């Protein structure tokens, strides 16, 4: 195993961590307008992710920084290639964050409605765009000999990638609904449970369609036969386990198995890409790989040492913060105005 491989795995882990953690808080943000009956409900919903969403987002910032340091060409090609989608994502993330911070600071309905819109769209758009972006990567992009993306926006927003965006949004919504069922009481908990149960079948159908179409549309299954391999199998099994535990009213396990589904689904993507990081649809010789996109061995070595020491510390205190705020939030906890 070389350093390039280690860093490919680490970046995959950072993205997977990001999708699992921010996945449920995106889902909560998307559900917030629909699941709440009044303003107190909305505040309860926002406060379920109150102590977490910011630190969850740092997983993305860390993934971005690690990509910059370990694979500068991957970072440069991806970020300049997806210029407009990433711009939209930034805008959405900005508005979402100020939505959380500012909405309940003023009582006027128009003020709160405005920031509620920011929270909803600010959760929906990034989730969708991550689906679009990763679908594009596994489809292969028109990358030229100079490693630059040569396509345009229409290329990125192709129908299959659009479907990928929808799949990611739906899975995050399910993830968010199950999170809400664990963190709320009163009527919210029941509504969250029934939304999750209602969504499971449609999500299964759409995701299956997306995966099957993947045989013709992506590089992931090249060289594979009809039997898909371990990661897809585990993804399917954990998604089924989620359904079983939902029916058994064991929401904690159901939530855990959606997280595992996301993990396995993302693993399919990263495992299928390796050793490429951004395949070129123009010419195989132009593929960005972990080798031609990486930093020097010295940089990777130093980064590995830093990661070895500090990732466990970060995991420990972030995990501790989840433990500290593990209690359910009731409507009574919200200060009256």
């Amino acid at each position: 195993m070389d350093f390039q491989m280690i860093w490919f795995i680490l970046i995959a882990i950072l993205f997977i961590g990001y999708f699992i953690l921010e996945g449920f808080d995106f889902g909560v943000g998307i559900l917030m307008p629909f699941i709440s009956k009044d303003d107190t409900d909305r505040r309860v919903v926002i406060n379920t992710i109150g102590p977490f969403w910011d630190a969850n987002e740092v997983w993305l910032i860390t993934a971005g920084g690690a990509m910059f340091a370990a694979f500068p060409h991957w970072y440069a090609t991806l970020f300049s290639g997806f210029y407009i989608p990433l711009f939209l994502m930034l805008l959405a993330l900005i508005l979402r964050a100020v939505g959380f911070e500012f909405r309940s600071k003023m009582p006027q309905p128009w003020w709160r409605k405005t920031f509620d819109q920011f929270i909803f769209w600010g959760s929906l758009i990034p989730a969708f765009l991550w689906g679009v972006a990763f679908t594009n990567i596994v489809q292969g992009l028109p990358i030229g000999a100079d490693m630059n993306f040569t396509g345009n926006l229409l290329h990125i927003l192709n129908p299959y990638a659009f479907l990928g965006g929808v799949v990611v949004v739906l899975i995050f919504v399910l993830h968010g609904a199950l999170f809400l069922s664990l963190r709320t009481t009163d009527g919210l908990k029941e509504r969250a449970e029934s939304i999750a149960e209602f969504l499971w079948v449609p999500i299964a159908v759409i995701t299956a369609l997306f995966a099957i179409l993947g045989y013709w549309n992506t590089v992931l299954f090249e060289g594979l036969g009809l039997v898909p391999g371990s990661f897809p199998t585990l993804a399917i099994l954990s998604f089924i386990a989620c359904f079983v535990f939902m029916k058994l009213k064991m929401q904690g396990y159901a939530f855990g198995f959606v997280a595992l589904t996301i993990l396995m689904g993302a693993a399919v993507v990263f495992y299928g890409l390796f050793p490429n990081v951004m395949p070129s649809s123009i010419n195989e010789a132009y593929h960005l790989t972990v080798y031609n996109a990486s930093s020097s061995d010295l940089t990777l070595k130093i980064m590995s040492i830093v990661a070895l020491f500090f990732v466990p510390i970060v995991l420990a205190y972030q995990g501790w913060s989840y433990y500290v705020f593990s209690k359910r939030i009731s409507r009574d906890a919200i200060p009256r105005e």
Partner: protein
Amino acid sequence: MEVLEIARWQFGITTVYHFFFSPLTMGLAVLTAILHTFYYRTNSEHYKLLTKYFGKLFIIIFALGVVTGIVLEFQFGMAWSNYSRFVGDIFGIPLAIEALLAFFLESTFIAVWLFGWNRLPKGIHLLSIWLVAIGSNLSALWILIANAWMQVPVGYTLNNGRAELSDFIAVMLNEQMLVMVQHTIIAAFVTGGLFMLGISAWQIMRKNQVEIFGKSARIALVFTAVSALLVATTGHKHAQHTVKHQPMKMAAMEGLWETEQPASFSMFALIDQENRTSSREFKLPYMLSVLAYNNTTSEVKGMNDLQKEYEAKYGPGDYLPPVKVVYWSFRLMVGLGMLFIVFAIYGLILWWRDKLEESKTYLKLATIIMFLPLVANSLGWIVAEMGRQPWVVYGLMLTRDGVSPNVTAGEMALTTVVFTLVYGILAAVAVYLIHRFAKPGVPEDSEKMLHAY
């Protein structure tokens, strides 16, 4: 406009805007932690209320610092992909470490602190705000390690058309970073200190909770006075370093066309960059030698000589930064720094004479001066960044070679306009909210989730 020009405007706007909030965050985090420590040690209700009060204002500012920071990390790859390819091997390391060491710390413990009132053991709760303060100042350290490398590249070899790391320790302990980080962090303390002083003065002026805000005003005064003096001494150190490693920047800061020995400090000049002359100059003899070398005899090189040197070294080209901007930004920054020192010390004298609460003029001035560090910080940043032009990495890469080749001028313009508009609106909302929450003074204490969203 060309893509390059728009990309530069975008970077300038988004960075300066972010830099309104980050120093304020760094300073206020430390001050809030100090207030919380006073509460922890004395168990006095006043300090508890002050902690919550300034904590609430801090959070609004913190939020804007966070959201505008993500834009910066993405922007290197989005708008400056060739730069990213060239520097990633070195520049990426501090950025990744910044996220891992500083951002996780800040973002996790700010939530622990906010939502942790009445929920955590008191010692742990206090520790959490200190971890926020440490995290936000640590982030400055890492980003300045990255920036220092752009100013004075060290520990690299040129390989495969890019700068590759050869000496990690040299990059981490870059002398340029050491001078920058002291100056920047302490300037952030002045920013936070004058903010707290201004808010406290405002309340005292309005006769609102005078006793409580007298306490925060005094803490802020001491903190600001010490920091303001240190900003000057570290700034002097910084100048001595700049003249050695970036002589062109120093010459531009002084509008110095011809080499002088001993060199005099320019107080005023009308600069004509096209004809490379200045008129109506007013100079203090010897003072530039003092600034640059801490003696009255040394020579300081002028831009005309340096241009010749650079041409011999790097080939034909124009190696002058935009002199007028750099010259005036530097002057204004130093002037403001001096003002802060005088103002804080005068405040201490008033306190000594027991007249702090009565001096209407001083209190009024404090409510205005609290905004000026934001200006001074931005000017300092402009001197550092524009003074380095035309280089993006000093001596290694020109700014014009760093821009993304596959982003169109239309796309770049669209994003620049939208970011500017959104940032403008956010600033207005933030100022409104800060004003609204600051006005009533410290809150009544409540056992509910005090900082609930």
